[in-house]
């Protein structure tokens, strides 16, 4: 008389998903790691010292975990948030006061703060352990881009509550783009781009204008930042995270001397 677990594990449904028996011996542990989409990110074996918590701080893993938290809570928030002048602020208030599970936005916010902290700590650890050195120098560059994307996610998300803090923070932050060399209309070299005495780089054609979609932070900016925050930057970050993990494995495994 087979037990229920045997019936399940002998069924075609189970076997079609899990191609190998329970990982009780070394061979099956290896093939399970190799044939599972989620597990194959990990190497089949790692140096004991390489995964020591005192060595890695697990900051990269925590950052990725927080990225997943932000993705899930962010999708849930999108069900109730409308990026329009009429609704943005009141939707944020309603997410706290009206919607059930009102801490969803708080989770998203605190998770964002924590992610910035952990990504810095991760970078700090990589620097201290010298893990940026060849052959890992390309992955260091990918990591720096991921750091920038994390900061941009925070920056674009900052505007979405559409309160005074958000509007003026983005105003001040985007003012830096005015001073960008050549591309900012107040930056050095902007005056060089003139055609027949007409400035090509003005406050309606410089980098800041391209970022805000307007001369000042307005509804166009809100919509633009919303799309950047919810679609564009997360997509780019996901791709780079995949490359980052892949290169960790290909460049000699998780941390530690080669």
């Amino acid at each position, binding site marked *: 008389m087979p037990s229920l677990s045997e019936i399940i594990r002998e069924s075609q449904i189970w076997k079609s998903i899990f191609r190998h028996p329970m990982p009780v011996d070394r061979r099956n542990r290896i093939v399970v790691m190799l044939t599972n989409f989620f597990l194959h990110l990990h190497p089949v074996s790692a140096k004991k010292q390489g995964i020591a918590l005192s060595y890695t701080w697990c900051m990269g893993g925590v950052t990725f975990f927080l990225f997943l938290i932000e993705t899930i809570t962010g999708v*849930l928030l999108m*069900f*109730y948030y409308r990026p329009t002048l009429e609704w943005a602020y009141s939707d944020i208030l*309603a997410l706290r006061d*009206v*919607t*059930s*599970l009102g801490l*969803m936005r708080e989770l998203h916010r605190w998770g964002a703060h924590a992610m910035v902290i952990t990504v810095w700590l991760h970078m700090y650890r990589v620097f201290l352990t010298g893990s940026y050195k060849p052959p890992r120098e390309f992955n260091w560059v990918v990591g720096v881009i991921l750091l920038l994307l994390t900061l941009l996610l925070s920056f674009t998300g900052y505007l979405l509550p559409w309160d005074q803090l958000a509007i003026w923070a983005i105003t001040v932050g985007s003012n830096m783009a005015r001073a960008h060399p050549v591309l900012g209309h107040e930056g050095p070299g902007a005056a060089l781009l003139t055609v027949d005495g007409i400035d090509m780089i003005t406050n309606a054609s410089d980098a800041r204008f391209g970022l805000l979609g307007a001369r000042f932070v307005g509804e166009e900016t809100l919509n633009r930042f919303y799309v950047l925050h919810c679609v564009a930057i997360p997509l780019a970050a996901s791709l780079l995270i995949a490359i980052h993990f892949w290169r960790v494995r290909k460049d000699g495994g998780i941390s530690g001397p080669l």
Partner: protein
Amino acid sequence: MADKKKLSVEEMLAACRKQDGGGNAGPTAPPSGDDASSKKTAAAESKPAKVAKEAPASSGAAAKPADRSKMSVADMMAAARGEKAGGGKPAAAAASAQSESTAQGGTDAGAKSGAKEKAAAAKGGDKAAAAKPAKGPAAPASATPTKSPAALDTASILSAVRSGAKPGPVSKSEVPTRAKPAEEKSKKIAVPPMPDKPAYAVVRPTGNVVATETRRSFFASVNAKIVGSSLALGFASLAVTHVLWALGLARFMFPNILTEPPTRFKVGFPDVLGLGQVDERFKAQFGVWIVKAEYEGQPQIFAIKSVCTHLGCTPNWLEAEQKFKCPCHGSGFYKDGVNFEGPAPRPLERYAIRVSDDGQLEVDKSRVFHEELGQWKDGSSFVPV
């Protein structure tokens, strides 16, 4: 095994003679050229202790009865190993010889296994010659000592086939199944009981149990309990958290505030409408016509749902033609909502309507009345004029 197949007829005969004649046979095996096994047989008789290592199984089985009168432990071990190496059952003659040794009162391992073989040999009975090939690859040589394995007669081959066994050479894939009896036999070698523990090795039970627990073992056991229980507690709380989150997320998906118009709303006083009038004021926001008209000869006020019963488009009221006309597929309805042209299969539906406390008509969109189900006779579906 491989050596066994090289046995010539003479050697087999010699082995049989030795079994029959007991210890007096002596080294009678004719030295047939370079046959190594014959030399080994001779060596086995002179030095029984080496039999297990050198002699093939049949030689070992044959050597044992020859020396049974003075069997030492080494002999018995050698015999047991020889049987193991031989794989199959020894010949019926060997079994009977071993049964004699059993009768001598031997309680050692070799004798015990010999007794088992005796039973097996007795079971085999008169068809021993046929049954032996099935029991093991070594059997043909020793079971039919007068014939080489290749010279099996037709009757024995047939009986072997009938008994479900395959005679002849053994492929690698068959080895596990065929070698099994030998393994079982080897397991049956009894281990002598352990001697009693000397007095100094016996653990004396102490009166105070706590006294046996050192500080270190105490902390180890406490630690195991705490870690074990905290692990269970951790996973339990994780599971509880997940369940609570799943429930919370399910609740999260159901908004607490709706921005759509209410399902109960007032549409003014009944006197405002003239008989035969269709009020279109509430169609855009609420999707309903308020009609004061006759239905089956009864003048009444009712609320018609502005959804075509064909595929769900919104019909229009055509005042000039005094009908509801759906722009999608041309379904037409009379003023009372009954269909008369186009693909619509049934009349338009009514919402519940009543006169509220302040005298105004109040429509309730949460209740729907179908004409084809006879629900338009329900008092909630109209207000009589």
